[in-house]
């Protein structure tokens, strides 16, 4: 199977404007791989730490063929780019601020593109959130609630964003929202898909992957009935998450910034081409489907008693087999992975997820088929 890690590094070096020389004397024994700030998915379920659901059949069934059908979809006229949904994920904040000041790079014919700081209070304090995670706040209950100051800041902000870019689920909602995130995990560039049936998004992701090749951009599909969560971007008709890392919270790394900028450039190019009438033929897209959330081992007081094992640390997207080292206790004992089959872990050691009881999430590889699409 492909080597995600080398692809990650090659994307990050391709996106460097100059070649990076080897560190001299830095790092050494201590691993210095950049770490992708995974977008802390807020797996808001109260399910126990290890919850396994048998994967539903892929949306492409052998008997079903899209080859004869071209889906006619409406133009994507209104697009938003969200940065600072988490206030300490700096690439999106820097990019959106740059584009608010100078929008030259995000101009495209026939599309109205709005850069937007989603959580300005959190950005100002350089924290993930002020009262509650904005990227979990877009639940139907929150969006329909009426009231004022008694709600947490982020709930009120979610309602405001829903008014500006939604309402979620209505024909007036924005066509596309790109939501920019960083992760401390070594995820490279990851596009996050919320529906396996969104052919527009699948085609966009296919376009992006081809455009940046041989550098890689993987696709994470979170359609899990319990682990899916109500994101900021879900207000739009087509929600696209972009997670780039590794990058510590509160830090801005040039290579991560450039990688995110390049991906967005291709995404906007796709939209422009689509709106101008280009037909995109049927394609397949490899995705990693969210399977299970794995928490850290904890003691009776809920304190963490082990860390991600050195063999697993930084190995996002690499196969984790039953029996492979998974955690290492503070006194050096190995705790192996005890699942029944090989999985592909990601969001490994995302700092923001300690409080969400998640050490990493397991995924299963799948190939989705997208029908041909063209504007209506």
């Amino acid at each position, binding site marked *: 199977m492909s080597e995600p890690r080398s692809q990650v590094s090659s994307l990050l070096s391709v996106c*460097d*404007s*100059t070649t*990076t*020389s080897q*560190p*001299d*004397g*830095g*790092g*050494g*024994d*201590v*691993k*210095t791989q*950049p*770490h992708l*700030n995974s977008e802390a998915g807020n797996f808001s379920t109260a399910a126990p730490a290890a919850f396994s659901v048998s994967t539903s059949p892929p949306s492409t069934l052998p008997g079903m063929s899209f080859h004869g059908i071209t889906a006619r979809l409406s133009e994507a006229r209104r697009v938003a780019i969200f940065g600072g949904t988490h206030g300490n994920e700096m690439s999106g904040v*820097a*990019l959106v*601020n*740059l584009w608010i000041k*100078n929008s030259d790079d995000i101009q495209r014919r026939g599309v109205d593109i709005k850069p937007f700081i989603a959580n300005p209070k959190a950005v100002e304090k*350089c*924290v993930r959130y002020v009262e509650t995670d904005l990227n979990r706040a877009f639940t139907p209950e929150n969006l329909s609630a009426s009231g004022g100051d008694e709600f947490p800041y982020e709930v009120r902000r979610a309602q405001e964003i829903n008014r500006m870019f939604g309402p979620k689920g209505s024909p007036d909602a924005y066509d596309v929202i790109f939501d920019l995130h960083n992760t*401390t995990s070594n995820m490279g560039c990851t596009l996050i898909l919320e529906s396996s049936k969104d052919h527009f998004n699948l085609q966009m992701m296919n376009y992006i992957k081809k455009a940046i090749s041989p550098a890689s951009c993987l696709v994470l599909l979170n359609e899990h009935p319990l682990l899916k969560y109500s994101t900021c971007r879900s207000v739009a008709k087509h929600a696209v998450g972009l997670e780039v890392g*590794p990058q*510590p*919270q*509160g*830090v*801005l*790394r*040039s*290579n991560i*910034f*450039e990688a995110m900028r390049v991906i967005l450039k291709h995404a906007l190019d796709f939209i422009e081409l689509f709106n101008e009438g280009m037909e995109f033929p049927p394609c397949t897209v490899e995705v990693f489907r969210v399977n299970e959330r794995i928490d850290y081992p904890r003691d009776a007081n809920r*304190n*963490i008693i082990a*860390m*991600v*094992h*050195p063999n697993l*640390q930084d190995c996002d997207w690499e196969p984790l087999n039953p029996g492979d080292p998974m955690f*290492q206790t*503070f*006194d050096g004992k190995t705790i192996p992975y005890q699942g029944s089959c090989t999985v592909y872990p990601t969001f490994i*050691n*995302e*700092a*923001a997820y*300690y*409080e969400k009881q998640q050490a990493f999430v397991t995924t299963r590889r799948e190939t989705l088929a997208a029908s041909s699409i063209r504007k209506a």
Partner: protein
Amino acid sequence: MDVDEPVCLPRLSRVAVCGGTHGNELPGVYLVRELLKLQRRASEGEEDDGEEHTSMLTVLSNPRAVQQCRRYTDTDLNRCFTLATLNGPTSDSPPYEVLRAQELNAMLGPKGGPGAVDLVCDLHSTTANMGLCFIAYSDCDWICLHIFKHLQRRMPDTPMRFIHLGISGKESYSLDSVGKHGFAMEIGPQPHGGVRSDIYAVMSAGVRHMLDWVGLFNSGAVFEGGWVDVFTLVKNIDYPRDSKTHNITAAIHSHLQDRDFCLLRPHDPVFQTFSGETLRYEGGEPLYALFINECSYYEKGIALSLARKRRLAVPGIRAQTEEEEQADERALTSEEEE
């Protein structure tokens, strides 16, 4: 310096290991928690074998910040240990960290007084790619320098540097300045809010070797002199900022990112603006770059720090014997009487 005669220093009977001085620097937090667990277990099963042990205090410095997983709640605890802050009058509603600093000073100090602990080791982690660093105010605290040499010998695969802050003891502001001897043990790269097992392993080994050294020193071992490369901080460089919003307008250049302790020469790239321009080092003197892109320094206006390197001669040392200690005390008492 007579190389044959080691310098004689008082034994280190009380040592403090502190973690969570910044609440989101988790390797130190977890290590302190593990040390406390071990100490509890040891004290439950302890038999008095009559030997004198070094007493170790293990301290979680900023519990409130740890609980919130933030660097600090009101103000940076590790800037609150100036004599002025410790001894000065407190306002009506002093910041939490100022009160906590005064508590820690009472527990481990008082700073400058004869009752202060002999050695403070304060555990930190950094997002910068610095490996393991000792950070100390003095470049002639032979205890700290010998502990550093000991760790270099015991952990040859870990990149290790000694950073000298180059400011006078009177201006010292950090927790490690409360003890008679002290240093910060800083390890990176480690994102804040998380703990990497490789970073934890290095920190745990570093503390273990330090405590081993203290035990050896106290039992009378003689440590040979030698040489240590010391990096003395000279200045800090801030990010270029927008004059109106004060937001940063560039990131550390990809050539410099992760290259802590490289020599930065005039005209070497330092920053990459968001519009793609390279900004270069304008200084006249080549200097060593460190703390490159440490996240918590954005608010302090520091993108990177610059240091000079020099080779320092460190004399041999040994602990005073009991007789020597008593002789010292007698001399002190008779001075006071006079």
